[in-house]
């Protein structure tokens, strides 16, 4: 298991939290909640060691579009980068969409 933490600049507060996914094989759980600070904070726990550079690439791309001051916790059980991106976008949609 490996723990990682990243910070990204944010432009706006986040009001509603969201939870998607499960810590099952090839999947991950995303908890998105308002960040106490002005930046976005990402905390990752993953079962697969040694892929910090891939996580950084996925997050860099995600935060090119996302600018909310969210705390995002990722509990990962071997999800591929594509699944990670889908779950992140699903969490944003759940946080900002019409239905909670």
């Amino acid at each position, binding site marked *: *298991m490996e723990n990682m933490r990243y910070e990204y600049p944010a432009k706006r507060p986040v009001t509603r939290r969201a939870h998607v996914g499960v810590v099952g094989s090839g999947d991950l*759980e995303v*908890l998105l*909640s308002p960040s106490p600070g002005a930046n976005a904070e990402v905390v990752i726990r993953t079962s697969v060691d040694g892929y910090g550079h891939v996580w950084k690439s996925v997050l860099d791309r995600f935060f090119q579009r996302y600018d909310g001051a969210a705390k995002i*916790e990722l509990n990962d059980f071997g999800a591929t980068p594509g699944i990670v991106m889908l779950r992140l976008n699903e969490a944003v949609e759940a946080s900002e969409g019409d239905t909670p």
Partner: protein
Amino acid sequence: MNAHDTFLARQSFIELTARERARTLLDPGTFRELLGPFDHLESPWLAMQDIVCQADDGAVIARGTLDGEPAVIAAIEPAFQGGSIGEVSGAKIAAALELALSEFEAGRAIRPVVLFETGGVRLQEANLGLAAIAEIQAAIVALRQHVPVVGVIGGMVGCFGGMSLAAALCTDLVMTRQARLGMNGPEVIEQEAGIEELDSGDRRLIWSMIGGDERVAVGLADTLVEDDTDQVRETVLGAFRRGVQKHRTEDVDGFIARLAQVNPDAIDPDTLRTLWGTS
């Protein structure tokens, strides 16, 4: 409707997560989660063993209503650690049932449902998980004097180990055809006793022994349902409308007599149906 349309009209119960299962069984719009993922009540033991935690420890406790009556559903998430019962997930389920019991002691009614999907105790948490399972079993026995405790085994994990005993204690036990119920899972038996004893890869054999169809046919479970959320919900509501029935586990003499009929050297699923068949 032809078979194709019927299939498409169904919402699969098995494919849902624990949280979605609880939400779809409750009356629409009444789902409210207790100790949800943002409470971060995780297993303190998994991280020490280099295993990633889930924020709800794989147990979803939901309040809401069933047929307009207050209800509590404890749902186990199959995808997280095989639905295994750890110290925290087990305590959440036991506490939900114990709180339901205290409602009756205070003169209020509540409908308890357990959605089983578990390989049994979480081996990484050993005795702490086993202790929690004992608490779950004790709570079911205490609660079922007041109200039916309804268990549903969805599949595809099934229900094994100590939790299979908890399922057996339920007033009404609902299974899908895909669900399995047993003490030791087939993989465990093959590993311990050898492939000559049981080939866990023989799916037809496994399901013919411990699948929902067989378990209901021999009276070890009560109702067989299709993998259809509406049908599961209707069956659960029906169990509460019937009220408290005689419990299978109180019929000790009956089961001893049934066991006496069985010759362990010549037993197979069809023979068992002939000996024990209820229908």
